[in-house]
């Protein structure tokens, strides 16, 4: 059901984009207003979400510890698994953000001959890394439309990405790997029953939306080429704040563009915000220094304390009369 909802949602968005290519007013909306609106919502929503997370109180140290804490000098500690200061935290965050280290630890349990057997299950880590890596390369490659003169380095990246020189125009490895990874991540949600049970419509929607963007992009490159000169003129029009409608770029381009606008505008309100959230996870970004530093809860109220000295002062006469020992005579 959740799957059906998200398939229908993506199809409706694609039909909407196709419908919008019918007349000039909606084409103007699609090429001159929607991209700016989407990027504005994306930026503002992203910043708002980050500030909300940043304002959330984290009074105590709650890092997940995966190794020996730093203690006595002769006990070997593991600064990346259990960081005690800023350098360790930066190293740990870099491994997490760039290499998805915590996903790599994923294990699976299986019953073999009546006994539970644990083993490493790194497929999600592998395809997750492939997915994010190829997405990054694809976004960087698109800078050829967004910069004039083209940013140095993009040509080199593009050449490496297309080094197989298969077909004309060249098939990019990142495109193939992105599609393979999206298919894996999607099929994983479908065939794994426990995972299917916890999958929401928004989970499928994110994958299907990105898959639809990738397929329309590949379509424009390999099946129905679009006029790239018009596309670049359109993009340079956005960048120089003087947008104009492109001529003869075909319906697939408008679908591609509209789906990207939807993705950008939806991003800050979705689980895709893990892009910013990973940096603000208290279980990752805190140093485990609870033993070397005292962390006070900042909103503790003042506690009314009645010390023993005060108690004895108050009841000294009565204690003496009852024959109880007192510290001060």
């Amino acid at each position: 059901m959740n799957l059906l909802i998200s398939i229908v949602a993506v199809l409706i968005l694609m039909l909407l984009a196709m419908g919008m290519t019918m007349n000039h007013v909606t084409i103007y909306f699609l090429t001159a207003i929607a991209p700016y609106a989407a990027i504005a919502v994306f930026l503002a929503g992203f910043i708002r979400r980050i500030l909300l997370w940043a304002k959330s109180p984290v009074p105590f140290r709650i890092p997940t510890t995966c190794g020996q804490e730093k203690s006595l000098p002769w006990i070997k500690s593991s600064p990346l698994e259990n960081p005690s200061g800023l350098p360790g935290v930066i190293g740990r965050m870099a491994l997490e953000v760039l290499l998805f280290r915590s996903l790599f630890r994923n294990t699976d349990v299986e019953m073999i001959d009546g006994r539970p057997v644990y083993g490493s299950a790194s497929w999600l880590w592998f395809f997750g890394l492939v997915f994010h890596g190829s997405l990054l390369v694809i976004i960087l490659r698109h800078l050829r439309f967004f910069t004039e003169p083209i940013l140095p380095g993009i040509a080199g990246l593009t050449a490496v990405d297309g080094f197989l020189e298969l077909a004309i125009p060249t098939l990019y490895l990142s495109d193939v790997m992105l599609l393979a990874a999206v298919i894996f991540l999607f099929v994983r949600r479908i065939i794994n029953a426990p995972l299917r049970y916890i999958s929401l419509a928004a989970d499928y929607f994110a994958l299907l939306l990105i898959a639809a963007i990738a397929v329309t992009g590949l379509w424009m490159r390999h099946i129905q080429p679009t006029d790239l000169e018009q596309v670049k003129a359109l993009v340079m029009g956005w960048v120089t704040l003087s947008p104009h409608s492109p001529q003869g770029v075909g319906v697939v381009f408008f679908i591609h563009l509209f789906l990207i606008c939807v993705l950008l505008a939806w991003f800050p309100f979705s689980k895709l915000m893990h892009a910013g959230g990973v940096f603000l996870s208290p279980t990752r970004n805190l140093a485990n220094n609870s033993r070397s530093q005292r962390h006070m809860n900042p909103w503790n109220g003042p506690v009314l304390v009645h010390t023993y000295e005060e108690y004895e002062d108050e009841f000294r006469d009565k204690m003496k009369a009852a024959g109880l020992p007192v510290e001060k005579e």
Partner: protein
Amino acid sequence: MNKNKWGFIILGLAIFVIGITFPFWYGKGKSTPPPLLSLDTPAITALTEKRCVEDTAFMRANHMKLLDAWRDEAVREGHRLYTAKNGRTFEKSLTGTCLQCHSNKEQFCDRCHNYVGAKPSCFNCHIIPGEVKQ
């Protein structure tokens, strides 16, 4: 770390915003005109009907696929004649057909290819017209 928290947040957000808006300030707001393709070659000037192998819109979008198909058909299958939609026939040859009219690679091919960052491999093998004379 707590006292540095807002420093890190602001640093992170600044990197994010600058990264996302990078194309806006990279070109410094200067508008760059799309490339003008020069059709001013002796062979084109001499033509009565200025029409490429197919119509301009088709050629703009599909010339790379056409050339790819021509290469395969001519070199691998030996079919060397192409019949256009309007019935005219052409020899399937980059040097013998395309470059006879478009003899100005720098003012024609390169302008668009540089503008959109396309790196066709035609001239890895084919000779660039006029290059020998230079």
